[in-house]
């Protein structure tokens, strides 16, 4: 399996607005990401290789999509919230319910500043919530989340019998921690993709501090 683009992150962007799709695509390219854009949640699931439970005939489904999702490595999904049919929240839920894809970080974008909506998305496992219009500066928040998936994948690789190679793999795993891009307060261990940096998205909107991982505590935010 060719890993020539190992250093580049691949982002799946979902938005029903053509203008916004063009924008997010360019924003991500400018941030050195490889981008695939789709115009609906169901197309996003198709691209990943997940089928909808009540799949209906979709005349718009491209026939050239790969069948095996293992060939496509997605490091992040960024999706609009308000979409006809499957909302960004529905898509988030589907991804997080999937054993194969729940580790992919998901970011929600919305033009509307609704605290209840934001907290609902974060509770469901979204890493960040961006208010539209999204700016280049917002995308710097994505790198830490995508880096985690790289770390995870590298540590999950089968270790070779050769010690030298094993040492090399350990070094590879340790190297990224030395990079300053990982905020100090983030956990680097292998746990669900939760981070305190998502608080920043909330802080833009409401001042409630959210410091506990969701599995330990259910905090109701208004």
């Amino acid at each position, binding site marked *: 399996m060719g890993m020539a683009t190992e250093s580049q992150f691949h982002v799946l962007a979902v938005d029903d607005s053509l203008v*916004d799709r063009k924008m997010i695509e360019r924003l991500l390219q400018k941030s050195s990401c490889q981008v695939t854009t789709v115009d609906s949640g169901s197309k996003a699931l198709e691209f990943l290789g997940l089928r909808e439970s009540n799949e209906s005939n979709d005349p718009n489904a491209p026939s050239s999509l790969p069948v095996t999702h293992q060939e496509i490595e997605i490091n992040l999904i960024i999706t609009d919230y308000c979409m006809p049919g499957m909302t960004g929240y529905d898509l988030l839920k589907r991804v997080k319910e999937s054993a194969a894809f729940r580790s992919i970080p998901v970011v929600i974008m919305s033009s509307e500043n609704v605290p209840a909506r934001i907290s609902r998305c974060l509770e469901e496992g979204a890493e960040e919530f961006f208010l539209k219009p999204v700016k280049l500066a917002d995308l710097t928040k994505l790198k830490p989340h995508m880096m985690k998936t790289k770390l995870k994948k590298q540590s999950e690789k089968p270790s070779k019998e050769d010690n030298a190679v094993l040492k090399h793999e350990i070094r590879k795993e340790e190297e990224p921690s030395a990079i300053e891009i990982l905020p100090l307060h983030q956990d680097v261990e292998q746990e669900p993709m939760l981070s305190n940096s998502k608080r920043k998205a909330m802080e833009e909107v409401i001042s409630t501090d959210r410091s506990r991982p969701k599995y330990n505590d259910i905090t109701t935010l208004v």
Partner: protein
Amino acid sequence: LHAMNTVVAQLQRRFQDYLVSLYQQGFLDNQFTELRKLQDEGTPDFVAEVVSLFFDDCSKLINSMSRSLERPENVDFKQVDSGVHQLKGSSSSVGARRVKNVCISFKECCDVQNREGCLRCLQQVDYEYKMLKTKLQDLFNLEQQIVQAGGAIPQVNIN
């Protein structure tokens, strides 16, 4: 060669002044600056492409909302609301400030099912997007003149 440099400088000055005036008159906001940041040597037509898509959107949405508002006894406010939402979103994304502001009023009229108000807003949004389209076309023409004269497009900082 010196004469050509002067021409380029003049064109650049015209471009800069015109762009600044569009911000000052409220046609554009900071998001248009963000949009320009995304354009580079590799994607020299990015801004023009995106605004073109936006204007197509405007035309399409205004037409469908107009149809929904046509008969007073049978207005599909849900459809109008959906159209306004989309228009507000895309105008916000490209920095079309006046268009976006009309959408805010438009939504309010829609929320209270005020057909007359909606019709006024529809007319206004139609006017604003067409006005902006003309202004931006002038801007892109100035840009093209600079390029043809061998100059670079100035990075304009709006405070």
